[in-house]
């Protein structure tokens, strides 16, 4: 079962899970973790392939994290379980079979990743790409392609959707002067929209040499046909081309 099916119980997650502590004046706590496969997936059409980050990310009372690799998955899930609040852990459906290098530190039973702390997945100086979950891999791939052309992209793995690590993005933008967000969710009211708005409200705005650029899923229900699905989801190629457009590089 995936997060698509959790819509059957979204009232319990949002109206009960997220709000009970506040509504009860701290009388009742709700330490619960909702974890499961999140979209976008592949070849399963509109009802089974969508990203819930912005859905849950909007709700005060919830914490929302979305791991990219094995380190994230372990550290964020541990942190979620230890957190006294309701936490939504959005794991990408297509990442379960993917292997990543590990370490003794990651394997230790007390390895936790604090919420609200992004990870610089790749350092760079020309543009900041802020993303989360599976697209972190696409951004790293695009950064590699760009590096061959002398363009240095900094990739930020947000890890946490709520709270959002704005400080890390601001710091990076002050260095690169360009910002792109990448997600697989719908563009309207998405994670990229929120990052853009918060950057506009911050001191980083004065450091931007170009408008913030959003790369998102297309604003359509997910089509089944492979050629249409490809047009509905961003990949490394789209990110690569869009970075060059933002930097005005041929």
């Amino acid at each position, binding site marked *: 079962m995936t997060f*698509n*099916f959790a*819509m*059957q119980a979204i009232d319990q997650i949002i109206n009960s899970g997220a709000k009970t502590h506040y509504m009860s004046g701290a009388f009742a706590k709700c330490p619960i973790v909702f974890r499961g496969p999140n979209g976008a*997936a*592949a*070849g*399963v*059409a*509109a*009802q*089974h392939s969508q990203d819930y980050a912005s859905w849950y990310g909007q709700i005060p009372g919830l914490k929302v994290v979305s791991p990219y690799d094995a380190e994230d998955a372990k550290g964020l899930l541990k942190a979620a379980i230890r957190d006294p609040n309701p936490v939504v852990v959005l794991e990408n459906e297509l990442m379960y079979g993917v292997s990543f290098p590990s370490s003794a530190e990651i394997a230790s039973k007390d390895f936790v990743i604090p919420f609200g702390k992004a990870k610089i997945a790749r350092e760079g100086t020309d543009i900041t790409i802020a993303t989360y979950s599976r697209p972190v891999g696409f951004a790293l791939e695009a950064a590699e392609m760009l590096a061959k052309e002398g363009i240095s992209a900094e990739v930020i793995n947000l890890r946490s959707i709520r709270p959002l690590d704005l400080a890390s993005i601001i710091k990076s933008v002050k260095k690169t002067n360009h910002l792109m967000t990448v997600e697989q969710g719908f*563009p*309207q009211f998405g994670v990229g929209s929120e990052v853009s708005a918060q950057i506009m409200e911050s001191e980083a705005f004065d450091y931007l040499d170009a408008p913030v*650029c*959003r*790369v*998102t*899923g*297309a*604003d*359509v*229900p997910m*089509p*089944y*046909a*492979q*050629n*249409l699905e490809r*047009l*509905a*989801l*961003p990949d490394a190629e*789209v990110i690569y081309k*869009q970075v060059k*457009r933002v930097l005005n590089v041929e």
Partner: protein
Amino acid sequence: MLRSAALSAARRVSAQPRTTAVLGKGAVFQAARTMASAASSDTVTFEFGDKTFEGYNIDVPSSSITLTKADAISLYREMQMVRRLEMAADSSYKHKLIRGFCHLCTGQEAVPVGIEGAITKEDAIITAYRCHGFTYMRGAAPVGILAELMGRKDGVSKGKGGSMHMYAPNFYGGNGIVGAQVPLGAGIAFAQKYNNEKTCTLALYGDGAANQGQVFEAYNMAKLWDLPVIFVCENNKYGMGTAAGRAAANTDYYTRGQYIPGIRVNGMDVLAVRQAVAYAREYATSGNGPLVLEMKTYRYGGHSMSDPGTTYRTREEIQHMRSTSDPITGYKHRLVDSGVASEDELKSIDKEAKKLIDEALATAKATPEPAASELWDDVYVKGSEVPYLRGRVAEETHYYNVD
């Protein structure tokens, strides 16, 4: 009240001519259509065994069914078509022509075929993701179903829905989220009642979905307003990797409507399905409100292609069901024993079904993918679109010509 409705239903079943699905299937199915004036020598009567039906707060349907020989043969032909269709889907999936999910109804063919023989084209059906057999029986051509499975332009949903989202006239899908189609079915029945139609809706769900809360909400409203809806639980004994008894506090699904009467039906017997649905249809369209039918059936394959289907049941069990309860083999013996058709006649039907599906598969494979512009079509009704929808980047924004 219930008894008299039951009796009159049974009488009308035997008197009423039935047409089987004809749309889009070509001349080969013309013989299947039967006329009310068929002479008595053209009819055949079959008797049901004691355990074919079990009632809950209602009398069970008549223990014999009379239908024309042509009709009887048509049921056989359609089950073969559904099985061949699913075999084509299975092999296409294994050849990677089909992506994502694919839920086959192999073993359960008697349910869609028996239902269609008992209702009219004006009645409605809605089901979950195991929908290929229903889509075909509601009138979609095999080529449209196979093309949809492959995500092609000529698919019944233009390649946008895939295996789980197929539609046909008065067939409302093809729904992906377990159980969610049941309240939708009650809603369709509400519209039928509201519009004073003498029609009903069959809302199908599996034994797994039967445990969803919304099923009970739909039961309540359907009974409260006496909606003409027949809740049909296809109990194939296993949900997604789970035996029914591990998921349900009560596996007598036909009793789970509490205040709604129910009938358990041998869902491996196409005639029993047809008889029970005709009876239920008469009940529901006569203003008696909803009914629950439990079709005891069995799927030979896994829940979907990613489930081998052998971790929660034994291979011996599957083999046993295939050899003792197969809906097609069982019915074949009945037709031969009663002299309705010879082995050879049925064999030629088998061959014809294989040929038709093979041709449909070849045609489907040759059809192109949808045009890229299809990405933007049908998000909203043509002419009433929002001004624009954004693509992956701002430059890909699609603008509609809306005044």
